């Protein structure tokens, strides 16, 4: 009971922190984030931001490599019983697939920002911005190769659940290959994500509201966050209403 309460408080604190961050970024986006990201640059504007993105990507690759090592070593050593080994391999695979997607998202953000900056850069820093663009491109290609490798490993380990990375319906195909227990877990996780996102949106909007009252009225950011919240609940409504078909 005490543990449950503690767990609930921890979850609430994490959700509040994420919601606060979303609201903070949305409300202070133009002023403080700009200052934090562009002002303390070393060579060219935004280089600190690119550095942070690169650090996150490298951490992602380190964790990716660690899970690959876990997967490969599980087949060789026999430190655990078969059930535990299989559980650890499944967990490693789950992390390998998730990390490859997260790495791709970060490299995609980096690559997109570098193109946008390249489009509006002055001649004096063009070389650096262009180098940044090339580097982000290399990382984007590497992240795609990483995703391909993750899928290749998945297909090798679970031939009955072969996935086609190039297919536009890869998630749908994967879901259809799941059995009843796996589908149940996926529904449970999805609903949990939905609930947590609702809390995050509430906290973000409350913060934006407070900022609007106390400092500057900013309708666009408030509407943008609100619109995202409405969209999420709208999708939930339309998906849910399908189950009441006569």
């Amino acid at each position: 009971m005490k543990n449950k309460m503690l767990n609930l408080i921890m979850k609430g604190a994490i959700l509040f922190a994420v919601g606060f961050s979303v609201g903070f970024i949305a409300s202070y986006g133009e002023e403080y984030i700009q200052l934090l990201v562009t002002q303390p640059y070393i060579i060219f504007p935004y280089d600190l931001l690119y550095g942070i993105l690169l650090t996150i990507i490298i951490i992602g690759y380190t964790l990716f490599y660690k899970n690959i090592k876990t997967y490969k070593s599980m087949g060789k050593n026999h430190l655990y019983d078969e059930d535990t080994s299989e559980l650890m391999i499944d967990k490693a695979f789950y992390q390998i697939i998730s990390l490859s997607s997260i790495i791709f998202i970060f490299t995609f953000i980096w690559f997109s920002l570098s193109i946008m900056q390249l489009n509006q850069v002055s001649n004096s820093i063009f070389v650096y911005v262009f180098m940044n663009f090339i580097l982000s491109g290399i990382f984007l290609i590497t992240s795609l190769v990483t995703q391909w490798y993750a899928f290749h490993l998945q297909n090798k380990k679970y031939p009955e659940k072969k996935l086609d990375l190039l297919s536009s319906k890869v998630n749908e195909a994967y879901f259809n290959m799941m059995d009843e227990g796996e589908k149940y877990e996926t529904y449970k996780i999805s609903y949990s994500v939905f609930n947590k996102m609702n809390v995050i949106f509430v906290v973000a909007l409350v913060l934006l509201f407070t900022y609007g009252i106390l400092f500057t009225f900013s309708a666009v950011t408030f509407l943008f966050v609100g619109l995202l919240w409405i969209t999420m609940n709208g999708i939930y409504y339309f998906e849910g209403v399908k189950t009441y078909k006569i």
Partner: protein
Amino acid sequence: MLKLKNRLKELRARDGLNQTQLARQIGASRQTISLIERGDYAPSIILALKISRVFRESVEEIFQLEEED
């Protein structure tokens, strides 16, 4: 509140089956077996009947409803 308890782990040990082998025999995933054993998932009637066939025990002998503490 009622909770579904099961003897899956005990019966697997009796018949010398690991989770993967049992999963293969009933056409499910290892993860599903693990979820059932932990009491995190109540299997469908079809899956419960398949499990009972593997262990040659009735469904009621494998799965019981018990009052939760």
